[in-house]
């Protein structure tokens, strides 16, 4: 059905020249639904605004509407911040756990690098060829210079710890960045956008 008939019905009220404005406490009561809801038209007393009076005042008074928009924004920030922080920390913890698994996999699968020992010379200590005299060894295997494992220190192998140390402050800075940019509270923003934002910040 064509909505024109209904659209025509809803005519916005013209801007008001009313010099009486509801106090901040009244706006707070309006937001929390604590104003009286009675039928009244015409003049009102200064200290007793009704729900409809405040609603209509806000539809015609730009200053009060802006004040209320700010109050709503603060309310939303108070609600949204813990959720946003929790989501960021969870995503970060999952990413770190995934990296830990990759790190552990690489530690197990990649062979430990070896170092070549200098070729040794067997020394006869039994005295058959004279004490301290070099002994010619016929077994050729003893002459092959062997590669011995040289394990790296943990701070080189477990690089995920460095990721933790670098990412943690970066995550904190990213949160501050989003907080300043007021994007952290956009709850409808997809996770991919947030991740992309973090990667960009990381880069």
């Amino acid at each position, binding site marked *: *059905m064509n*909505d024109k*008939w*209904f*659209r025509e*019905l*809803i*005519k*916005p*009220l*013209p801007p*008001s*020249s*009313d010099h*009486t404005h509801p106090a901040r406490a009244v706006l707070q009561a*309006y937001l929390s*639904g604590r104003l009286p*809801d009675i*039928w009244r*038209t*015409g*003049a*009102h007393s200064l200290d007793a605004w009704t*729900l*409809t009076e*405040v*609603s*209509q005042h*806000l*539809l*015609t*008074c*730009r200053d009060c*509407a*802006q004040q*209320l*928009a700010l109050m*709503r*924004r603060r*309310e*939303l920030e108070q*609600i949204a911040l813990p959720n946003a922080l929790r989501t960021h920390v969870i995503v970060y913890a999952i990413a770190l756990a995934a990296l830990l698994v990759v790190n552990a996999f690489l530690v197990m699968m990649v062979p430990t690098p070896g170092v070549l020992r200098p070729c040794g010379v067997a020394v006869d200590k039994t005295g058959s060829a004279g004490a301290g005299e070099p002994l010619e060894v016929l077994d050729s295997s003893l002459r092959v210079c062997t590669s011995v494992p040289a394990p790296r220190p943990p701070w080189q192998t477990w690089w995920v710890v460095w990721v933790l140390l670098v990412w943690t402050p970066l995550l904190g800075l990213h949160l501050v960045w989003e907080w300043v940019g007021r994007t952290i509270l956009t*709850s*409808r923003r997809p996770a991919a956008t947030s991740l992309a934002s973090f990667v960009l910040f990381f880069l």
Partner: protein
Amino acid sequence: MEYDPIVLSQRIRLAYAEHLIRCTDLPPSEMEELLSLDGDLDAARRWLAFGIAKRRYDPAEVRGLLIYLFSNYYPSLVSDPAKGELLRRALKNKTLKLSELTLEKLSGTYLDWQDVFRLVGKEFNPTRVKERVRAIYEELKGAHHER
């Protein structure tokens, strides 16, 4: 406070619509004169049609239609993105009370029909409700001509 009869009548009609949404409206018979203080009988009949439809049919459907209309067709005076966000959050958390809704809280929030259905607690055919309101309006108009 405005005392211009046209603006005052417009305020009264919008107040009536708001009370229809909150279910604190007076009977249409008591509103007839008040809604046409400025002599605009056509506008008065249109709003009365909502009031009568609310009493004749399912009130939730008429309230839902009004919520949709004000949410989508009454512009917000200032940019207030938090308003829609808070409204949808309250809707999602089922903490939104119809008895606290106002035209200002709805204006510029662009709720879709699914939001409206959730808010009034039932699904309905909006076209049918609109047709019923229009039919009552035509009835009122016809009755006036017969007089």
